[in-house]
C-alpha cells in the first residue's frame, strides 16, 4: 500500500497496532499492525503467529514481525484469547505491507473485556500522534 491510510472503522493503539471489533460478534476482534508500522519496517519477510488458544494481555507483546533490516514487537491493543491465526502469512508475509488492514491481518481473538476499547484511539486521534 503506497499511501498512508488509516480506516475509520478501526481502533488504534499508539504503538501502531489496530483492532477491528467484529460487527456481527462484538466479543471478537481482528488485530494487525498499521500502515505506519509496515512502512517503518520495510518489506516483511517473516511472521510466526502464536498458537490458537494463547492469551493476549493488553499493551503486552504477543508476536514479532520481521523484515530484512529489523524486527518489531506486535502489541495487543486489547486482551483476549486467540481463536484464529492468519495462516496465509507463512507463504506471503508481504501481505502485511500490501494490505495491512485486510489480507495482512494477524490474529483473531475472543475479547476478555470489551471495555478496553475505550482506551484506544480513533483514526483521527491516531493520525495526529504520527505528527505532520
Amino acid at each position, binding site marked *: 500500500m503506497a499511501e498512508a491510510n488509516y480506516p475509520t472503522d478501526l481502533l488504534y493503539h499508539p504503538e501502531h497496532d489496530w483492532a477491528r471489533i467484529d460487527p456481527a460478534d462484538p466479543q471478537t476482534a481482528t488485530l494487525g499492525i498499521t500502515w505506519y508500522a509496515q512502512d517503518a519496517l520495510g*518489506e516483511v*519477510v*517473516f511472521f510466526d503467529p502464536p498458537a490458537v488458544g494463547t492469551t493476549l494481555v493488553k499493551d503486552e507483546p504477543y508476536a514479532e514481525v*520481521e*523484515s*530484512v533490516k529489523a524486527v518489531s514487537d506486535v502489541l495487543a491493543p486489547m486482551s483476549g484469547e486467540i481463536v484464529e491465526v492468519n495462516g496465509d502469512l507463512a507463504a506471503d*508475509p508481504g501481505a502485511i505491507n500490501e494490505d495491512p488492514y485486510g489480507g495482512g491481518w494477524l490474529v483473531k481473538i475472543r475479547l476478555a473485556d470489551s471495555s478496553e476499547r475505550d482506551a484506544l484511539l480513533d483514526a483521527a486521534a491516531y493520525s495526529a500522534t504520527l505528527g505532520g
Partner: protein
Amino acid sequence: MSAIAELPLQRDHATTIFQKGAPGRRAFMCPELDVPAVDPEQLLPERYRRVRPPRLPEVSEPEIVRHYVGISKRNFDLDSGFYPLGSCTMKHNPRLHERVAALPGHARLHPLQDPERAQGALELMWNLQGALAEISGLPHVSLQPSAGSHGELAGVLLTRAYHEDRGETRHKVLTPDTAHGTNPATVTMAGLEVVKVATNAAGGVDIEDLRAKADRDVACLMLTNPNTLGLFDPNITEIAEIVHGVGATLYYDGANLNAVMGISRPGDMGFDIVHFNLHKSFTQPHGGGGPGSGPIAVSDRIAPYLPVPVIVRDQDGAFDLDHEPEGAGSKSIGRLRGFQGNYGCFVRSYAYICSLGGDGLKDASEAAVLNANYLLARLRDKNAHSPVAEYLPLAYGELCMHEFVLSGGPMKRTLQIKTLDLAKRLLDFGFHPPTVYFPLLVEEALMVEPTETETKETLDAFAEAIGAILREAAEDPEIARQAPYTTPVRRLDEVHAAKHPVIRETLG
C-alpha cells in the same frame, strides 16, 4: 545509463566447490596403515559407525587452488583499497605479524603444554597484559575473551559478581541510545535489563537524564568515549561521579580506543572495566569477519572476579597459569572459553606494540584524529565547489576525534538518493563505503573513520569521489539508485534471501 559490457568477473558465475570435481578425484594422500590390521567390529562396533560418508567434494589440489584463488578475486580487501568503516578501525595489517605468528614456537605450541615449557608464550602474554594496562590506566588484565562482544559479556558478568559479593542485587545497565548493538544483547545474556540514557544536543550523554536514571538498582553504565558519533564526551568526569555515587561501575567499550592512545586513558577518566578490540586498534587482521580478540582491563576492586586462568609470576621470574587464584574461596566468574584465549592474536598485537612503542601508539592516535578532521574539513569545504556540506552535514559537533558521522537526510530529500545509494555508487569508484545507518540516532547516517595509515592523497581522492557522486545525482539520481555497475555482482535481493533462506548447497 549507457550499457556497460559485462565485466569478466561478472561473466564468471558463482559455482561452489561442491559443484566441481569428479568421483575419485582427491588431494589428500593418507599415510599407510602401519599398525596390525584388526577386525573392524572390534575396533568400532557397527552400530556406532557412519553408514553414508559426508558428501564432501572430490577434487584435486590444482582444482582447490584455482577455485579458492578465483573466488578470492571477488573480494575487496584492505590491502587493495580504502576502508573508512566507522568504529571498525581498518588500519594497515603489517605482514611481519603473520611471519612471527607462524614461527613454530608460537604456532605449534599446544595449549596444555606445561607452563614451565611455555615460558615464552606466558611471558608474551604477561608483557601484552602490562602494555594494555599502561594504555588503559587499569592495572589488572585478562586476555581471555574471544572478541569485543565477548569482552563486554565478561565486563557485565564481572559487574554482577562485584555487586553480588557485596550482597547487592542490581538489575539495570544504562547505555546511551547511541550505543553499538552488541551492548544491549550482552546485558540481556547476563540476566540484566537495558535502560537507555538520552543524548544531549551536543552529542554527549544527557547529564540530567543520567542523574534521573542512576539509582541503586543500576549495576553499570556502559559507554564508549569517544562515542559512536566520534565525539569525546567533555562531561566524562561528572558522569563517572554520578555513576560511582550510586555505587555502580563504569564500563568502557574500547571500540574507539584508536582516538586516545597515549592521550587520554579510560582508567584516568574513571572507568572500572575496559575492553579492547585487538582486531581494531591493535591491527589483528579482520579476516573477513574474524578472528578477533577482546581482552579486558579492570581496577583493583574488580580484580578478584577476573576469569580464570590468570597468569602469575614468581619472584624468580617464572610464569605460571593459575586456575584457582585465592584458592578454594576464589571469587572468579570462572571460564569464558577453552584454554587461554586467542594467542595467535596476542602474538600479532604484541609485535605491533613492540614496533610502535609508547610514542608510536600516541603518534597513531594523533594521526588518526588528524586524518579524520582533515577529511571532514575537505568534505565541508565550500571553496572546493563541493556540494557535500549541503547534502551531507555533520550530525553533531564541529571537530571530531578519529571518526565522524554525517547525515544523509538533506541528500535524501533534495537529491532523491539515500545513504545506501551513495554507498553502492562508491563501490564503482573503488572505495569501500563508510559504515551506513549507524548510529540509529542520526538520520541516514554515514560514519567515516579513515585511520592513521591512510595518506592525504587517499583522503583527497575519497572526498573527490563523494563530491562527484553528489553532482552526478543532481543530474540523474537513477545512476546511484541502480549502482553498483562494476562489481562482481550487482545489487542483491536480500529480501528474497530472508524470506526463503537457502544456506547450503543442495546435493544430489
